């Protein structure tokens, strides 16, 4: 195709550029498509021209692109003097899931969840003992509503207190295959998540968690 003398016609002011032929229109269309797709804002014609190789004609490429997206799930829309790709208005109902507002879980909830995950099945009294503060009812309700914890079997001790365990949803959300895959204290430490010396634990009930911290104390030399 290079035997034709007609290289990029428009720019007499930049003679050294005319050595390069502008890409074919199909290619220009691809470029406009990619730029509009990846940009966080609508893009003006001028911006498009500035980002594409010299000699391109984004206005024409836009005409082709607009035609290509006609009737599709996405349409090329003009926003002021700029252009953007937008999902088709009639499909807005599909976007409902996108409108979820996410908030960070409170510290109390994260800690309660962590205790359930590491110590399950665990009673509310045990959670309070480990955290050292009382657990508000709202926190547990919230975790249950998120479907991250659920009621487990009742403990066969006086009062038959209810226990809590984590759910399959919890495992899915945190990308775990089972709660046993949660790293132990030793591993948290070696991953740099646990900076300080482990607190000496009260002699006790929780068997293996304690062992971990014990061995850590002596590994540390």
């Amino acid at each position: 195709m290079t035997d034709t003398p007609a290289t990029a016609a428009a720019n007499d002011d930049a003679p050294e550029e005319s050595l390069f032929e502008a890409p074919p229109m199909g290619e220009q269309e691809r470029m406009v498509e990619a730029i509009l797709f990846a940009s966080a804002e609508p893009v003006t014609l001028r911006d498009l021209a500035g980002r594409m190789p010299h000699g391109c004609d984004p206005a024409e490429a836009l005409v082709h692109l607009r035609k290509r997206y006609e009737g599709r799930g996405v349409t090329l829309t003009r926003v002021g003097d700029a252009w953007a790709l937008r999902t088709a208005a009639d499909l807005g109902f599909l976007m409902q899931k996108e409108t979820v507002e996410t908030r960070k879980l409170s510290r109390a909830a994260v800690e309660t969840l962590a205790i359930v995950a590491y110590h399950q099945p665990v009673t509310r009294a045990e959670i309070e003992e480990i955290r050292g503060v009382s657990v508000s009812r709202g926190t547990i309700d919230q975790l249950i509503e998120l479907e991250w914890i659920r009621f487990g079997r009742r403990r066969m001790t006086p009062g038959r207190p209810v226990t809590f365990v984590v759910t399959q949803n919890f495992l899915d959300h945190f990308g775990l295959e089972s709660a046993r895959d949660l790293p132990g204290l030793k591993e948290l430490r070696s991953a740099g998540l646990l900076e300080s010396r482990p607190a000496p634990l009260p002699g006790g009930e929780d068997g293996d968690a304690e062992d971990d911290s014990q061995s850590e104390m002596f590994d540390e030399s």
Partner: protein
Amino acid sequence: MSETSLFASNVSERLAAEALIVDVDGFEGPLDLLLTLSRTQKVDLRQISVLALAEQYLAFIHKARDLRLELAADYLVMAAWLAFLKSRLLLPPDPAEEGPSGEELAAHLAFQLERLAAMRDAAAKLMARDQLGRDFFARGITEDVTRTRRVTYTATLLDLMQGYARIRTKDEFRPFVMDRDKVFTMEEALGRMRGLIGFAGDWTDILSYLPEGWEVDPIKRRSATASTFAASLELAKEGRVEIRQSDTFAPIQIRKKTHD
């Protein structure tokens, strides 16, 4: 460095040595160094001469020591192992000897080097791939059409683990104090034994000097045993008691030294 250059008569030799040695910190451990050395053999890693490699490594360690470079223990452990491997490769196999042959050991080292090289290569290939946010891109405008506004709460695995770590290390927030209620200090043990030593006439097991109430709880017992033992040694040093133990792990006994 200037001191050594006085002795190195052969400039090119010295440069060759320094090229490796100056850079000793640049190596990520002995395996990395061995891999670099093996490159000088300019053959497929499956055909390298492990014997020659062992010699190169030992020569390297030797030179590094001449230059008084601090070598990490790993490097010296590997040197010892390679010296052992070398002897196994050079000496005819002893039929009475147990364990793997020199060839097996050499083959494993060659395998390790090849595997490390392969992983380096794979890592380079991986990083050379087109990458998201550099070569290809995700949608720039994600559509958050406000229609249903449902609030969900989210936390990451890191949040969870950090939360747990936080609970388990609550003590970091209080000023550092040793928990002493289960510690029987040597001063206490000494005081106690000085008072009691006069009453026991003959050889007595030092465990009988443990204070009341410290024999049951294992943590307390351990502390009291240690301090009582240390105190016994101190008293023996002062010449106030004699100490004996009939056998390994046998009871340790003391008695008052009679000055006669």
